């Protein structure tokens, strides 16, 4: 890791249920800690200033932009990333719906969008089209024109009706 002139710190993070103790420069964002400290590279850096949403992860179930979240703010909280969506039984219905609907083209925005969509379905199991558009409005996608993404989220919601997240 970093051996330059940075001040290093030990940070304790709970990510996808795993406890990590990681030595990183103290100015790291949550995204940098995840990607470069823990090696969870699923969350993406598209702009590094909170504009694109590719870095979206859940902090205690709420979507946050990890590229502008100081890593300290994640201590003592539950972090969930795209790597924590699938289970040994297989893909999460949202992931499956993204696959089945062609909702991931280049896939770079996909981890962030999945986390925003997951948070939506957690608080609203039967979202309207307007709810979906609103929930995804902080995640920029440049490939799809959003159409297939929206369909995938709606399909997943339909499939999950009556099933616990």
């Amino acid at each position, binding site marked *: 890791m970093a051996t330059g002139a940075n001040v290093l710190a030990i940070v304790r993070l709970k990510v996808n249920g795993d406890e990590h103790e990681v030595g990183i420069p103290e100015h790291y964002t949550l995204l940098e800690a995840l990607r470069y400290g823990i090696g969870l590279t699923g969350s993406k850096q598209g702009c590094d200033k909170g504009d*694109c949403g590719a870095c979206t992860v859940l902090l205690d179930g709420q979507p946050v932009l990890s590229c502008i979240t100081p890593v300290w703010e994640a201590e003592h909280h539950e972090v969930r990333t795209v790597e924590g969506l699938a289970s040994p039984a297989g893909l999460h219905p949202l992931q499956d719906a993204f696959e089945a609907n*062609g909702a991931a*083209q*280049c896939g770079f*925005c996909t981890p962030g969008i999945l986390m925003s969509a997951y948070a939506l379905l957690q608080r609203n199991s039967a979202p309207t089209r307007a709810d979906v558009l609103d929930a995804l409005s902080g995640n920029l*996608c440049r490939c*799809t024109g959003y159409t297939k993404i929206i369909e995938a989220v709606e399909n997943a919601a339909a499939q999950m009706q009556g099933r616990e997240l």
Partner: protein
Amino acid sequence: MRPEELRERQARDAVDIKTLEAMAEREFAVIGGRARKVNSVGKVTGSAIYTDDIVLPAMLHGKILRSPHPHARILSIDTSVAEALTGVHAVVTGRDMPVKYGIIPWTRDEEPLCVDRVRYIGDGVAAVAAVDEDTANRALDLIRVEYEEIPAFLDPESALAGGEVPIHEPGKPGRNGNITKHVRLEFGAVDELLSQSDVVIEGDYFFEGSTHTPIEPHCAIGYYDPTGKLTVWSSTQVPHYLHRELARVLDLDVARIRVVQPVVGGAFGGKSEPFDLEFCVAKLAMKCGRPVKILYTREEVFYSHRGRHPMKMKFKLGADREGHIKAVDNKILIDGGAYASFGLVTTYYSGQLLAAPYVFESYRFDSTRVYTNKPACGPKRGHGSVQPRFAFEVQLDKLAERLGIDAMELRRRNFLGEQKRTVNELRVTSNGFLQCLDAVESASSWKERQRRLPFGRGLGVAGSCYISGTNYPIYPNEMPQSAVQIQVERSGRVTVFSGASEIGQGSDSVPAYIVAEELGVPLDYVRVVSADTDLVPVDLGAYSSRETFMMGNACIHAARQLRTQVQDAVAEIWQCTPGHVGLAGGWAFDTADTARRMPISEAFNIAETKFGTLGSTGWYNTPKDVHGSYRGATIGASPAYSFTAHVAEVSVDVETGFVAVEKIWIAHDCGRALNPMLVEGQMEGSAYMGFAEALMEEQVFKTADEGRAGLHNAPSLLDYRIPTSLDTPEMQSLIIESIDPEGPYGAKEAGEGPLHPSIPAIANAIFDSVGVRMDSLPFSPPRVWRALQDVEAKNRWAAAHGLASSQSEAAAD
């Protein structure tokens, strides 16, 4: 597992006999289905490895120092203090790599780092490799560069006028070094036919530049191992061209270089040529013997640009009373930015690609691309032809208005047809443009609604065509443009080694569908290895919408050789003719009696016993004898052209000038949809991107009055506004299949064509909505509001809607 057990297990995994019978009945078992993409599950689980996700042992981090001046001489660079900083392992400047490069061999005008002159704010002058990003950034601050500023050319007119120090040395003495390329081509008696025309429509159009903004910033890693082999991982869409240019610039043996393209997070033409970071990671790695990674910041992505060229277009269109196009006379000034990039081709494309889907009796275009001291423009989705298409389709709408002909009908009257040559002698094979018009007309209820909606709401139509790859490669050679190798394993697993570049469009999936179709294996038996120059044969890359057409044909070529072998071998066992051996759904079966069948792996084993190890090579090369004989005739020549028509519905808030696009109906002739789901994805993504350029996006730079001349006005994803889910209109995809005689199963492109009509369809819908003509992009609220202040607008709208106004015609254009 014993062979019998394996076969039994595969027989269980293969489709049941009913499904097999149904497959045998159909023309295709896999092609045309809505199958999932292959190699894509990692994109939903976070396990897909993009370039910045790669961490190599002992890897260093690189950064590039960039020019703060739009135009200046470099008097000196002092890197000694930076080199002395703890943690810094190497510093390079232009003098370490003083070889010019460029994607087009005739216009190589870029240096990996500037040697003695910078040409835009953001031009690279030095690069460092250090233990981490922070140390690399500190080192950049310690590099001292002494500049002498030179007057900058920030707009195309001043560049064209020339000056004491042009941006580049002229190719020939006495010429203006600010001109990249001038093309003037004339087909038929333009002046004569213009003077004979019943109606002449003239217009001045302006297309502001825009940029790609892939969500993944460019990233590259270089590693030079002790044996002298260089490996570069890069988020490129053209590994082959990068491979060649790395060898040339670094003076290395091309056989000792490996270029690997990891998963790429969007490109759209913005990663289709070599960039400074690729040379810098290579050179830094060579210098310090350790892997070096450079990841662009979002600002650097904006400065590296290569996006849509701003164009100033003076268009003239002559027609007879019935609306038949007699003459088209266009003059275009293209703002190229600091380097040539693909600019030579852009200049040609701005004229060449306009000559379909309509018949032009005569045609002239005069296009000039000039250098300016801004980031270089290049190929953005719909390279070179989106801007003139916008202008021309608005011209057609004005013509329809003037003549009182329905805008759909006017387009039908001028339809080129199939198996035709355009006025500039491009060969058009299949052509489903009329069906595209029919589809959007019907889906949008055009007949009942256009010119009949209340003030503030309207519909507009536009059409277009685009290439499915280019008949001539970027560097002259007669070798195949695309190739694959297929390897068949005893288990039934088939691996395709494909040169094509997957950038999200699905070029890893196309060979899997084709192999599953031809060899009858389940889709998940197919592995696709792509875009790694150590492993795969050459394909020229993901640009000009060439992959499906060219790699698809190469793949069919390779797969059919294997299919024939398997059929021959099985036929021998079954004592039937090879034509009776079907391969589908995991089975080899007797087409006359599907009850007689064997798991596909067994068929492969029989074939391997007869012919030896199974493998094949397939390739595609373009037709080379289907263009005119004039200079430049080869540019724009494509094996097939796609066609598109859109109808856009807009509502305009007359108080604010805010335009809302309610819906876009997209009809696209893609020849055959190998997978309709992926084709729709390309259509929707294209229409979205066109919509974004129409209403929101503009790549603009500060003027001297604004403080920092040549500084990007908004190099962030907040200030450079791209649409969110809330901004994007509803879109409906209508696939038209004209079945091209030369395409793979009849397929043509779908990735770029469907962008073109979005912009003029929206412009024409704004006219239908409120009676104002929007001839400059983007159609932002201030522009639309100002146009609405013109008191004639309401009259024009009334006239267009048959509500009587005597002044309407004079004001119509």
